[in-house]
């Protein structure tokens, strides 16, 4: 360990009554200080949070009261994404079935978005989260919008009409993508 100034301990050599104080080491025992320094260091390292939380910015449209101000979109340009329970996504184009069910991630909704975006550059995506879907689903889908560079999308309410479309479509196409 560190040099410890030797007190009277090492003693056989001491001669006579000579004062030998001058020879004593001036070194300080730094061990306790180092202990403390490392203790603090460990504490601060462990308490520091380096990764600051990241955020997603969301811009929502204001509520439109006047019907004239609402933009009309061709139904063929609309991709409906219903975020359902248990991490499922029902999607269809326009107002009619077939409805296809898919999941999240690379082979699920991302593929759909990329394909539909390629097929129709004017695509407008309507995200309709069901009440039972999770917040994580919404964040995931917004993330997918970013990843697939989908510029035109909106989060809208899930309506009973959507429900009928899904239940009607589910009978015809039960096949799931992946």
């Amino acid at each position: 360990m560190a040099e410890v100034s030797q007190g009277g301990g090492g003693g056989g050599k001491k001669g006579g009554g000579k004062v030998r104080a001058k020879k004593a080491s001036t070194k300080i025992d730094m061990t306790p200080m180092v202990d403390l320094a490392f203790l603090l260091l460990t504490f601060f390292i462990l308490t520091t949070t380096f990764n600051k939380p990241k955020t997603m910015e969301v811009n929502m449209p204001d509520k439109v009261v006047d019907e004239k101000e609402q933009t009309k979109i061709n139904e063929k340009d609309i991709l409906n994404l219903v975020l359902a329970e248990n991490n499922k996504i029902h999607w269809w184009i326009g107002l009619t079935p077939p409805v296809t069910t898919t999941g999240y991630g690379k082979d699920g909704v991302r593929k759909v978005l990329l394909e539909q975006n390629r097929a129709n550059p004017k695509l407008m995506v309507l995200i309709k989260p069901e009440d039972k879907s999770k917040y994580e689903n919404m964040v995931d889908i917004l993330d997918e919008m970013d990843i697939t560079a989908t510029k035109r999308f909106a989060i809208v309410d899930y309506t009973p009409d959507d429900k009928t479309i899904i239940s009607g479509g589910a009978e015809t196409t039960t096949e799931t993508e992946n």
Partner: protein
Amino acid sequence: MGKVKVHRTPPSLDMTPMVDLAFLLVTFFMLTTTFAPEEPVVVDIPKSESEIILPDKDRMIISVANDGRVFFDMDNKLHRKEMLLQIGEKYGVNFTNDQANSFAILSGFGIPVRSLPQYLDYHPDERKGIQQPGIPVDSLNNELADWIVYARMNNPRLRVAIKGDRGTNYDVIKKVVETLIDRKVLRFNLITGLEQESKL
């Protein structure tokens, strides 16, 4: 003759550089560290690929717990105190100076306005044991809307962030978002963790 002299002194080690380094690091961590504020509820935030960093100040955080309880937090003690007094005036609840001061240093809370004075009277250590019911966000009794309005009145530069648990049902989030839109907060942030790589 060729006798080897045995050193009596213990092997010495010069610790000065090490100590220098240790203190340098201590100083660095001390200065950079910001203590994570105590959260009233554990929120498991979802992951995303977004890399926008949440601003350090002028922020209002609306936390939504797994079970749908809503919590409110805002920075800046002065604004908080002012806001509390205004809210109290609106609801006809009087806050003493002590209560207001203790509110100013509080972190997030999920207490209806009328129960706040009682909650603030508790010692900070006792508060941990109290189950916070969450701030009402129903359309009939939407206290969150008032908090948002008064918070923004006190600090117009406020950024609104929603910190939702990944398992929260969307209907609660919808209520919070609708409250924000009704109060003309159209741009807000969703707090997420950074996803390391795109998931499968």
